[in-house]
């Protein structure tokens, strides 16, 4: 694994923006087709929304906590980029940290603070209730996510992402750790405030965390959600899907292809499943997901020790 110059971060930003835009276009196409338009018309949604929000004024509220509000709304994109820093693109990586998996975990915990701050900032009941909803949901998915990240680390005997990729030369971790992979994907949906795990921005709270956000701030939050979805999917590739392994194409292409396919799957889920209300999802998180993923880690440990 080659650690490249930090200047290559520009390429990472471009790749993230491209795949996230693809995700937004795909979502727009699905929504557009459901509304009776052509998929192509719907796919223009990100461009239209970009133009609309760039033109819209940013609106304040009475006694808003502006600094914390801006940190919350602007931080999601930054966190997604920092997650991407430890994802190897074929042979190259921006940061070959010895604790890359822990780094990713730290970044996803930062999302707790950011979403809550975005809800706290505007001094609005619906926004704050949305922020607290996200915390309740995060309590349900975070521990299962931590153990889901532990499983590949145990399997590879290392917290370095490059080592995890090397350990999957024969068999992808996603294949023989299906529970960990499934829990990981669910958690990506969770920290991206997406689909069934989006009650924090739900219609019943008039948009929740998003209720008072307008203009470029709204653009940053919406882009941040797609960026998190993309970064989460990209990190699944070295962790569960064999990194750049694949026939014919060069390794970096395979990383991109796998990321795009997983993002598309996560986008497609959005409209199909009803919301999981946080108070009920906590039960699932602690009584089903956590025991299941602990059992997964146990199985992995036994295989590693005996094999």
């Amino acid at each position, binding site marked *: 694994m080659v650690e490249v110059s930090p200047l290559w971060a520009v390429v990472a930003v471009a790749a993230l923006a491209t795949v996230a835009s693809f995700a937004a276009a795909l979502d727009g196409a699905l929504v557009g087709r459901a509304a*009776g338009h052509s998929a192509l018309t719907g796919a223009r949604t990100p461009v*239209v929304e970009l133009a609309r929000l760039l033109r819209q004024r940013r609106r304040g509220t009475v*006694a808003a906590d502006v600094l914390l509000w801006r940190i919350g709304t602007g931080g999601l994109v930054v966190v997604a980029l920092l997650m991407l820093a430890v994802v190897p693109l074929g042979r190259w990586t921006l940061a070959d940290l010895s604790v890359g998996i822990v780094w990713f975990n730290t970044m996803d915990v930062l999302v707790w603070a950011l979403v809550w701050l975005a809800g706290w900032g505007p001094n609005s009941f619906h926004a704050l209730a949305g922020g607290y909803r996200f915390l309740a949901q995060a309590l349900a998915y975070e521990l299962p996510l931590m153990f889901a990240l532990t499983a590949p680390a145990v399997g590879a005997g290392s917290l370095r992402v490059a080592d995890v990729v090397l350990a999957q030369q024969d068999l992808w971790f996603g294949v023989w750790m299906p529970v960990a992979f499934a829990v990981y994907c669910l958690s990506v949906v969770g920290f991206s405030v997406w689909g069934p795990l989006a009650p924090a921005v739900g219609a019943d709270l*008039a948009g929740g965390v998003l209720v008072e956000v307008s203009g470029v701030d709204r653009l940053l939050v919406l882009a941040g959600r797609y960026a998190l979805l993309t970064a989460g999917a990209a990190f699944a590739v070295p962790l569960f899907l064999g990194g750049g392994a694949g026939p014919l194409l060069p390794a970096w292409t395979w990383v991109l292809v796998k990321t795009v396919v997983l993002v598309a799957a996560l986008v497609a889920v959005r409209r199909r499943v009803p919301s999981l209300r946080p108070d009920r999802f906590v039960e699932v998180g602690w009584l089903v997901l956590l025991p299941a993923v602990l059992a997964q880690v146990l199985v992995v440990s036994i295989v590693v020790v005996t094999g």
Partner: protein
Amino acid sequence: MGLSSLLARWGVAGAHVLVVESPGSWLTRATVERALERRGWRTALSPADADLLVVCGQPGDRLAEIVEQTWDLLPGPRTRVQVEHAEHVEPMLDAARAGLLDEQGQRQDAARRPLAPPRLEEGTQAESADDGDMGGMVGDDMDDMDDMDMSGPAGIALAGGESDRDGLEMDVLHVPLGPVLPHWPPGLVLWCTLQGDVLTAAEVDVLASSAPAPRGSAGPQVARRLDAAVDLLALAGWQAAAGEVRALRDGLLVNGPDPGPDGAAPIQQVHDKVARSRTLRWALRGLGHLDGPTDGPTDGPPDSATDGSAVPAGLAGDVYDRLLALLSAAGDALDRAPEVDRTPVLRLLPELVVGLDVAAARLVVASLGPWQLAALPVAAGGGRG
């Protein structure tokens, strides 16, 4: 043509629209929603997300005042139109589009308005503590201010404390839900006392229209019930199903009910699909239980809200039962059930929602639809205006 007019033309292609419905104007609102969908526009969930404010029907004085306050909350560029008849929708939306593209006018509008809301001076009449919140736009909520400390930021009253349901001290907030709230009964205001997001008390109020609904504005009952189901499914976060039911509703409104023997088949299909979802059942089961009119008052669960005699037919059971009833009644009794005035239900509402969190309370309110509200009778009490 500069960059700004290019942005304007692109942006307006996907305008977000906040729709306010005055009681009795649901057909107009449904027509607006259909027109928006055809144009590729979206409905906004809150004023901050909206470029365009569409008022359906003729709001009474109190609702009109709140519409004005809502208008102030649109960030801009912004336009507003009032649509009183379904046939006026298209020309009105065309005019709104032109208004959004009128850069000169938008610039003048922006110059007239400050970017941040004015700071409230200490000692002046603070609006309710959640000003800027879309539910908090009714500015005359002074009844509960006596016991509040007004020294908070920007002269906003600080929340008082009180013991919560576990006996721990917790802040008490007074937040009105409605009347400008998506998927909410038109004209209804629920004055909530909240600890966290749990309702500890609630009072109902109705902001009526200034004119009675014109003749023929009731529309087909099947479509009306499907419309109520759309609200409930959207609140439950199941957008695909909500979209399907809305398409069925629009089909009925445009083409009329299919007279053939299979006229109800598509509705039955959606009913079956919704009934198959375990996630939905798991989310809605047990919420807002009401005893049916024929059940004895003794055999209901202890938390059932009230004696069964006051519960209108079709509302018995929990939120999940009522959702399926909305879809199946639509299926098998094409247009024979009479219009039900929901005003009596308001009396049950506070007891039903107290103790629930906002999400659950919203689901309960939506499940009692289709909402048809006349002005609040004095007996129901709780009105503040």
